[in-house]
């Protein structure tokens, strides 16, 4: 390997420092591995910090009848049975222990009368299941994990962007990255790598996601030859802010509905009666998002094109205590007092159910030594994720990924990395300084516009075909992105690297959406509005073949009889 680069060597390299990455790091450290965590932002700023409503775990503290079986069933029903059932089972079985662990590391959840962890209702969950801290559960979680990891002694490489995975033959060998601060390159050499890079929301203009969520992990895995799974399933959270323009897409937690918030259209009708009369506001996110979108499209939207969400019938003190950040967010950014009147809300691109295909037990991808956990991985949530199942996902599968990555590293020799890969990675990253061409900001905006219009909540063959054409053209233009200035903290240059990831995942989403000729969960085809039995039993798999993106279908795994019996059981809500 070339000696001119700053190089760090670890047993396990973790890319991403949100809930999944930090939980993986803690577990790998516990196994005695040397662990490096590399992240695009400062430690503690990852998107997990924005998670509001809670962590789903069948602890039964409020509803004693709840257990893992009902959590499993709700998750499968919410995912329209496309979930990897083994992941859903492990998740439901292990979530409660992972929450207790957080408490033992210092997290302070809201309490029940008898001093246990309080749980609240949420969409698609049959019981009060979400462990929470007001509406800032994610902050509590990330701070707890961060402090735990720091005390255990992981090395954190903050504000550092990985642009390529490095390989040793067929196995992963590390990553090539640059420091955002000064643009210098850095090589991470590692026996195993965990991708915990989160989602892809920044390919859409109206999103709850921050600038980091450009699909890096999925794109890195794809480039390295790993399989991506069910990329058509993009969750639009039903309630983002719609006004004023600057805050469009900002998340309004589902906890507002969990605490009793009501949805109405401009005529004052509780329109959920028409879409899911049983569960009403606490229906699953795919259903509520489509309902709001439909109300607006059919002319019953609010002044700024949304629906009204009202919690003002609850006592003002209660609202401020249980939803403090919502109270402040609306008061400060929209001049709305949510204790006195309704909020205006509409769908916002929020979460990626698809991602790197992984083994349920170990979070291993199809590349030796490469693991993925959290939003970057796929399988647990199927066609639609239930609120609260993301934070528990991060803990359960972050831990499993860390465990397996450390075990794998223990059994391996140090990999070798040829300098050709590194030089190619360097050339690619520096190219925007050396050519004349377009601004990455222009391309990003164009991408977002057609992804919103043509690869959004409702999809058609014609729209998706048109989006494919536009993606092809953008890919060509992206070869000529140009940027001025120096390599010192240069956001325009950083966006060039992010654009590459966004184009890869956008193409994967669009191709998969074109292929799936049915409507299921978050994937709604106007031209194929119903479930299709064949599609209900197969996954879309994306795989790189040379420079071409290849798509194929693979049958899902049959459920064992005991789990089948659980799903057939009609006790509890859910549909």
């Amino acid at each position, binding site marked *: 390997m070339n000696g001119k680069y700053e190089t760090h060597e670890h047993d396990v390299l973790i890319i991403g420092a949100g809930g999944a990455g930090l939980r993986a790091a803690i577990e790998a450290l516990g196994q005695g591995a040397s662990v490096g965590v590399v992240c695009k932002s400062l430690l503690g700023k990852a998107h997990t910090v924005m998670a509001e409503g809670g962590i789903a775990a069948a602890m039964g503290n409020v509803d004693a009848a709840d257990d893992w079986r009902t959590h499993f069933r709700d998750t499968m029903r919410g995912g329209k049975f496309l979930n990897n059932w083994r992941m859903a089972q492990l998740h439901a079985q292990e979530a409660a222990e992972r929450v207790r662990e957080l408490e033992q590391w210092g997290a302070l959840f809201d309490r029940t009368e008898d001093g246990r962890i309080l749980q609240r209702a949420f969409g698609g969950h049959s019981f009060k299941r979400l462990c929470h801290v007001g509406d800032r559960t994610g902050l509590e979680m990330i701070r707890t994990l961060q402090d735990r990891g720091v005390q255990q002694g992981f090395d954190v490489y903050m504000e550092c962007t990985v642009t390529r995975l490095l390989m040793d033959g067929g196995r992963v060998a590390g990553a090539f990255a640059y420091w955002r*601060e000064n643009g210098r390159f850095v090589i991470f050499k590692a026996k195993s790598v965990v991708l915990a890079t989160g989602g892809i929301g920044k390919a859409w203009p109206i999103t709850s996601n921050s600038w980091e969520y450009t699909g890096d992990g999925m794109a890195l895995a794809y480039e390295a030859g790993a399989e991506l799974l069910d990329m058509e399933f993009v969750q639009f959270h039903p309630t983002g802010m719609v006004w004023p323009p600057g805050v469009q897409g900002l998340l309004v937690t589902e906890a507002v509905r969990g605490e009793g918030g009501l949805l109405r259209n401009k005529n004052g009708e509780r329109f959920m009666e028409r879409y899911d009369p049983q569960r009403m506001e606490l229906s699953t996110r795919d259903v509520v998002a489509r309902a709001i979108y439909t109300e607006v499209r059919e002319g019953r939207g609010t002044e700024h094109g949304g629906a009204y969400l009202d919690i003002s019938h609850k006592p003002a003190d209660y609202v401020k205590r249980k939803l403090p950040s919502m109270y402040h967010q609306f008061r400060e*950014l929209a001049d709305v007092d949510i204790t006195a009147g309704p909020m205006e809300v509409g769908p916002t691109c929020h979460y990626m159910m698809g991602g790197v295909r992984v083994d349920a037990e170990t979070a291993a991808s199809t590349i030796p030594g490469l693991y993925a956990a959290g939003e970057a991985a796929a399988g647990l949530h199927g066609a639609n994720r239930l609120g609260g199942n993301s934070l528990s996902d991060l803990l359960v599968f972050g831990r499993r990924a860390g465990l397996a990555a450390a075990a794998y590293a223990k059994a391996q020799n140090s990999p070798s990395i040829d300098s050709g890969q590194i030089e190619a990675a360097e050339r690619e990253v520096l190219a925007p300084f050396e050519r004349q061409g377009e601004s990455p900001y222009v391309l990003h905006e164009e991408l977002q516009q057609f992804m919103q219009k043509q690869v959004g909540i409702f999809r058609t063959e014609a729209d998706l075909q048109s989006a494919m054409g536009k993606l092809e053209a953008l890919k060509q233009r992206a070869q000529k992105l140009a940027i001025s200035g120096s390599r010192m903290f240069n956001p325009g240059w950083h966006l060039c690297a992010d654009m590459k990831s966004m184009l890869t995942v956008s193409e994967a989403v669009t191709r998969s959406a074109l292929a799936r000729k049915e409507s299921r969960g978050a994937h709604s085809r106007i031209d194929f509005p119903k479930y299709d039995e064949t599609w209900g039993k197969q996954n879309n798999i994306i795989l790189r073949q040379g420079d071409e993106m290849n798509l194929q279908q693979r049958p899902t795994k049959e459920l064992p009889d005991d789990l089948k019996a659980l799903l057939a059981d009609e006790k509890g809500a859910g549909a």
Partner: protein
Amino acid sequence: MADVVLKVFRGDRESGATADYKVPVAPGMVVLDALHYVQKTQAPDLAVRWNCKAGKCGSCSAEVNGRPRLTCKTRMDSLPQDKPITILPLKSFPVIKDLVTDVSWNYKVNKKIPPFTPRAGTDWRMQQADIDRVQEFRKCIECFLCQNVCHVLRDHDKHEKFGGPRFFVRVAGLEMHPLDGVSRVGLLKNELGLGLCNITKCCTEVCPEEIRITDNAIIPLKERVVDEYYDPILRLVRKIRGAGSSAK
């Protein structure tokens, strides 16, 4: 729509000056939106740190018209529009570039603090009333605005001897955790320099999470240090009992 002029610091550790950018103001626009507009249209290499744009991550701190703020929560219409809006990096930390400062010192201070250590044999039952005050401290989003305005750091550069309000809040959260079993009072006195704080409450004033840093964290911690090190009766009692250093 009316245009406003932003005067934004451009430069690095060595040198720099403000540059003017014209920005059209849209309804509800915040200062961070205006900075993004500048990046998109005039200065793609303008360095700004941000993440959530919702006041939850504490990344986008800067000094707006002389006042330390989260730029994502500072509405343009809350500032006078007839004169330029000045946006400078946090003064208490070294500039990396433009509005991005080197806050790594904070992460080093944090490492000195012993983690939550549960008392043996706890059943993990806690009453809400007993954790309310700790939950207040745990609202901290680490925007470091409190560190930025603290005189001990801002004017006297005591970074080596002083932890700063952010870490007094963090220690208070641990010390007042109903199930925590270790004392950090010695650390507060000796390594975090709590005594240097002269309770001017500047930190409390700028906290975007409205944590009552001085009243609820710093003053009770100062009392614990006094009890431990300066109360003659308590010292005598401890001497007689032969107790260790626990001040809990």
